[in-house]
């Protein structure tokens, strides 16, 4: 049981505090309700570019990283389609430095042409490294483009093209900051060796006087409810051809999604799953095969894939993937479903042990309106019935609603 405290400042900043005297550090985690879903179609990748700029200094801080390092701490951030998360871990005796830095960049970020230009270069290199120089680097570009036609979920966080990143203007950055980096659009979680009284005092001192600069983000995860399944063939750096099947499904806020996650673990989450057993071991069609269910705040997404062995056709594997999925609907594997629950239970034991992941989970659940979920996840998993999970799978993962992507080796 993780005991935590929750309070809110008059400026709308929500704070979750969790005292852990067993560690020497304190984690300050700030989640902003802004992600790639808030970008315009001609400025994709912007939320992530902006995340980089948050380390370029602020009104009273010349170098964010140097101050953290001087305090013996470390920091980083990540962006996804739905939110942007910044975290700092510092020795407990230097926690005030973390409050100073995090609050100052919420108060007044120092945005200038030079830092924008440098970070554009950095992010373009990141884009190339991730997307053009590794197998499956453009997978999420292809998948999202097939699933969505209007929604901003149709591009990945890194952006559609790096031209969008290089075209970003200082005025775009300033407007984005004013619009989204406001205390009423953020959740702060403070976890580690800091008691509640000191935490409140530091939160009030450093964040209490920051004014609201924009409305809380009301962009309610605009995922298209309907879609037309599509087919596509692309070239990729993978030396072996690949078949991907993709479906949309319910998101994390919908009860059904947890059952689908467990179902996907049974079907293709490990080397003893049905997909792997049949496609890799028994039939020798693939050298890798798996499936997973992604539970986002706005979207749910199910992907099953097989990486083909030499001489095997895309059509054969596509057909077998469909058949294995369809066969699974009417013969729920009780033993494997229990195993999936047991594995999830163990994972939930390990996840919150680290103060950083505890801070991130608390902020995430507070962002979704229920931080108490950190203590209820195991119970919720336990309550999922196998019948419900498989019925949901049958409803969502029909052959006629799947999008199909083929990869062929480049050159």
């Amino acid at each position, binding site marked *: 049981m993780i005991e935590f405290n929750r309070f809110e400042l008059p400026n709308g900043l929500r704070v979750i505090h969790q005292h852990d005297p067993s560690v*020497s550090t304190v984690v300050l985690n700030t989640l902003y309700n802004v992600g790639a879903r808030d970008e315009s179609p001609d400025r994709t990748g912007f939320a992530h570019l902006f995340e980089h700029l948050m380390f370029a200094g602020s*009104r009273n801080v010349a170098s964010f990283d140097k101050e953290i390092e*001087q*305090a013996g701490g*470390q920091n980083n951030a990540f962006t996804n389609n739905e939110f942007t998360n910044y975290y700092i871990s510092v020795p407990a005796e230097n926690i005030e430095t973390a409050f100073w830095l995090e609050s100052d960049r919420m108060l007044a970020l120092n945005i200038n042409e030079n830092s924008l230009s440098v970070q*554009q270069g950095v992010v373009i290199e990141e884009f190339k490294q991730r997307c053009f120089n590794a197998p499956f680097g453009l997978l999420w570009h292809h998948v999202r483009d097939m699933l969505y036609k209007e929604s901003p979920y149709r591009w990945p966080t890194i952006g559609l093209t790096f031209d969008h990143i290089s075209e970003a203007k200082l005025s775009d950055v300033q407007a984005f900051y004013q619009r989204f980096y406001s205390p009423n659009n953020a959740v702060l979680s403070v976890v580690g060796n800091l008691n509640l009284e000191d935490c409140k005092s530091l939160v009030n001192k450093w964040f209490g006087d920051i004014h609201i600069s924009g409305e809380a983000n009301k962009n309610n995860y605009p995922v298209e409810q309907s879609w037309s399944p599509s087919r596509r063939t692309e070239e990729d750096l993978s030396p072996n051809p690949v078949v991907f099947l993709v479906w949309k499904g319910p998101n994390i806020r919908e009860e059904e999604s947890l059952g689908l996650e467990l179902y996907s673990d049974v079907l293709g989450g490990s080397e003893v799953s049905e997909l792997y057993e049949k496609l890799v071991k028994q039939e020798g069609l693939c*050298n890798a095969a798996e499936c997973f269910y992604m539970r986002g705040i706005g979207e749910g997404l199910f992907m099953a894939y097989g990486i083909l062995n030499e001489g095997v056709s895309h059509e054969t594997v596509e057909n077998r993937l469909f058949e294995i999925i369809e066969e699974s609907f009417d013969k729920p594997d009780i033993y494997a479903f229990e*195993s999936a629950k047991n594995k999830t239970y163990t994972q939930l034991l390990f996840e919150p*042990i680290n103060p950083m992941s505890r801070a991130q989970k608390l902020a995430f659940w507070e962002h979704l309106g229920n931080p108490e979920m950190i203590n209820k996840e195991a119970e919720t998993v336990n309550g999922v019935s196998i019948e419900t999970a498989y019925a949901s799978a049958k409803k969502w993962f029909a052959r006629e609603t799947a999008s199909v992507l083929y990869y062929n080796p480049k050159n």
Partner: protein
Amino acid sequence: MSYREKAPEVRSIANFNVPEIAFQKSAKGTLYFHEDSPGIGAASVFWLVPVSKQSQSKAFQALASVEMLLSGGDGKSEKEILQHIEHLGASVGNDSEQLYARIHFRCAKQVVEDVFAWVLNHVERAEYPQEELERYGIIKRASIERRMQTPGYWSDRKAKELLYKDLPWVGTFGSLDDFSVLQREDLMNFHQKHIKNSPGVLFFSGDIDSQQKENLLNIWELYERGSFAWSLVDENIINASAFVDPIKHAMPNSSQVSMRWMKHIGHLEESATHQYSLLNMVLGGYFGSRLMQELREKQGLTYGISSYFKPLWKGRSWNISGEMNSENTEKALISMGNIIEELQQHPIPADELDRAKRYYAGMFRSGFDGPFAQATKALQTLVRSNSSDYYAQTLDHIWNINSAMLLQLAQNELDTKTFVKVVAGEV
């Protein structure tokens, strides 16, 4: 003046009460480490077997023997073995590192003995079914082929092939075709000689109480064991040659270059390792390093560039690597050269060195936080043959290092001609 204009006072991390990393021996002589964290419900167990690529007679023999330990045995198929582990809610892995093999699992406290008995039984009785070996070869080959599509794979490989050509367990990679000549007998022989009944060192951490620890030791000692000893060959690397021109490895589908410099550093006294660590930090070992600040944060040439050590047996390799646009490579190399030259010619300014030390101290102390931290430190202590007071002395050593020492070190070690240089990708 607003209170925000002045940075809060920062305290440096004084030496603290470093927990003692103490190995124990069971009555039957098993070497083990145990750290109990009551109440968390989560348990972690791993054991180290002193066997690696060094002991193999065929390419991929050690890797396959370790990675296929749970592929079948004692009348059970791979599927049956893994299904039972999953049903217990555990996750298991077996890695073949350069110096040792490690078998590890994580699970809930209440099943730790069950998982250990099951995993250990099948590790000891591994039979490596032929059909599993054939499949393993196909899967592994495909997986390595995918890695070969990245410039980083080739810059690392080419550098090692040149620098460690006389040290096969580091500098030889084998051909993918070698998987097809690997026979079940090769794995059985390797298992019989190096893994079955092998002396190992056990590491118990998380919520494992004394009684459970005794139970785990009893399970381990059901199998007859010798006493633990390393059986590794000292690396004896003497590179008299000067490496001036970079090796180029062209990759037609690449749109970037992976740049890598690598040199060998031999055995070091413990106090000297801290000087190397600190010099490396200032060079490229953390975000505030000169390489990151100059090449990424000032010039925007790369997403990441860093320097780091990779441990061998008595020594280590010193690496500098980063990915960048091919048209930026020349610029980056010039900047790197300037940074290194500066480190050789001028003492590191006091404030810069102080920041590196404070960062180091903060990371060092937080490295002891959490229920699994000490087992990790214990593993490092064993592998690096560190003295029992290594960690207790670390901060004193770090705080006592000054700019003059690092200037001397940079002059001795950062001669650019002593680094193998590789550029792979769009060259």
